[in-house]
């Protein structure tokens, strides 16, 4: 439509002006092309380098496996400083919202109280989310540094300490998505706007 030596917007305006002259009923906006030549096709490599998200169906989970025993070693070396030896957090550490961020287990039965304790155990609906979040954002000092075995293992450790899975269970790409979280059915669609009484 226009050569590379012409600024595309001016080229488009020019084309629009021509179009308007030729067909007065055509709006100026129609002078913009539907397709632009900018950008590059994303290669499989481009995509693989960043496509790390894991949905509840487990699609994209990497090979590897881990259990509570292996996870305990990972946790104590990489997680315990902030989340605490008993997975209950460490007083005084950054914790926003207050009381909610660093505590990993406990809190079942508190969601109907004025002081809910919202943890992986009591609140998170999917175990895949735990794996995904640790892989992308943890440990705090070196995010994204755990390998697949460590990720499965530390996920198993947290879930077993929270009595969500058995301590003997091995987590991998097949078993992790099948973990039934206690608050799996605890989420509802947004009903707003509310009608206040």
């Amino acid at each position, binding site marked *: 439509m226009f050569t590379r030596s012409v600024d595309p917007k001016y080229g*488009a305006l020019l084309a629009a002006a021509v179009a308007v002259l030729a067909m007065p009923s055509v709006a100026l906006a129609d002078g913009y092309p539907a397709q632009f030549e900018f950008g590059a096709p994303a290669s499989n490599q481009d995509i693989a380098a960043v496509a790390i*998200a894991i949905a509840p169906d487990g699609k994209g989970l990497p090979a590897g496996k881990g259990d509570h025993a292996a996870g305990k070693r990972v946790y104590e070396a990489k997680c315990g*400083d902030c989340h605490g030896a008993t997975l209950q957090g460490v007083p005084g550490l950054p914790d926003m919202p207050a009381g909610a961020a660093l505590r990993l287990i406990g809190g079942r039965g508190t969601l109907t109280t004025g002081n809910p304790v919202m943890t992986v155990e009591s609140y*998170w609906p999917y175990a895949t*989310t735990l794996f995904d979040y640790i892989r992308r954002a943890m440990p705090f000092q070196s995010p994204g540094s755990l390998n697949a075995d460590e990720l499965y293992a530390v996920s198993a450790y947290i879930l077993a300490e929270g009595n969500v899975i058995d301590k003997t269970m091995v987590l991998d790409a097949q078993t992790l998505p099948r973990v039934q979280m206690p608050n799996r059915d605890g989420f509802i669609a947004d009903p707003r706007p509310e009608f206040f009484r």
Partner: protein
Amino acid sequence: MHSDDFEHDHQKTRAIDEALSRIGKPIPEAQARYVAALEDCECNEGMFALAATRRQLFGGAGVVAAVGMTTMLPGPAMAKAPPGAGEYPVQADSTKEQGRMMGADGGYGLRSQFETDVRWVNPTKTAGFSPLQNSYGTITPSGLHYERHHGGIPNIDPARHGLVIHGMVDRPMRYSLADLRRFPTVSRTYFMECSGTTGSEIMKAREPTAQRTHGLVSTSEWTGVPFSTLLKQTGLKPGAAWVLAEGADAAVMTRSVPIDKCLSDALIVFAQNGEAMRPEQGYPMRLFLPGWEGNISIKWLRRLEVSDKPFYTREETAKYSDLITTTGKSRIFTFTMEAKSVITFPSGEMKLPGAGFYEITGLAWSGRGKIARVEVSTDGGKSWHLASLQDPVLAISQTRFHFPWIWDGTAAVIQSRATDETGYSQPTHQQLIVERGPLESGSLFYHMNAVQSWGIAADGSVKNVHPLG
């Protein structure tokens, strides 16, 4: 009343600093000193700021206060200019000698060294609150726009940054900043608000100032490419229903966005208030979803994955979901920021010098469109009066309102209540608690948009007050 709170904040800040350095993440010394200075000065957001910026209103008293600030504070602290300013010698008579030559600022303008408004940074260093109480008009200066980060502020070289769009598309694409800038662009003035703003205020008045209650909302003119333009380039496969947006920060922040929003008013933004967007806002590029909670407008955007289902990321399940404690169920994908307002003058920690005329002013906004009206009460909600709305009233933007008031010098409670063009009006705290249940750990009470009250005592001092006491 607030001295205990302040002492508590000091202790918490110190404890957190110590803990942060223990785990190998010390905050920069400059920021530590700076935050400490803010914490130490209760007056910072009160009469000094009021006097320095409202000199016309208070005449001589304001000048005295401003002079006091510059000459009486200790040397080392004032030897350095406030953030965003450069320190220059003050001339004895500026009409009797040439002013400084152009270019001393390096070509990028600085504000006056006598202006001190800054973001208030919370003790965990994860949120910076905009100083609403001293704001004018509706546009937030880029350097004062609120911030909320989950993995610090990444420093990104745009030459090494790309945005990949893939998943259920016909043609996966990668766009550089230079590519984005070549597309036809639009500029829109939109507010952005954190869904946690004022959440901690649901059960009682906790924070002293408008900055610290409502400061996680700001307005900028944003420039970028409509997301729909990019999706026209990639095409969409049948069944495409959600898009995962992902940032290039240390949290690799991710949120799932319904495709309808992506195809309507969503933008991929690279400029703010007429210049390249600030790093703390997502440089070189961010998603911008007008009217929706700020967290979902992913900053430092590196990836958009089109999918048939949401991903249920940590930031849309464990966080940013709204637990209703009366049922134990949580609302998920609660995107819209509903109508809200706050009186910015007079507001918490200010002090009115005496009975007489005051122009009450504040800001109102709604994620569902334009503000239709703002009502003001000066008797604690017994009677309401229409405020005037300052043009232009833009959809999904902040609207400045004004209301003339003769204060009789007795105790008063002033409030504002916004109604948007859909007819929705701000609720009370009680109505929200009835609807969603009480929540003592209030910072989890997302989308808290109740009517704010400022109490004015007979001595003119203004403080945050709450209908539940």
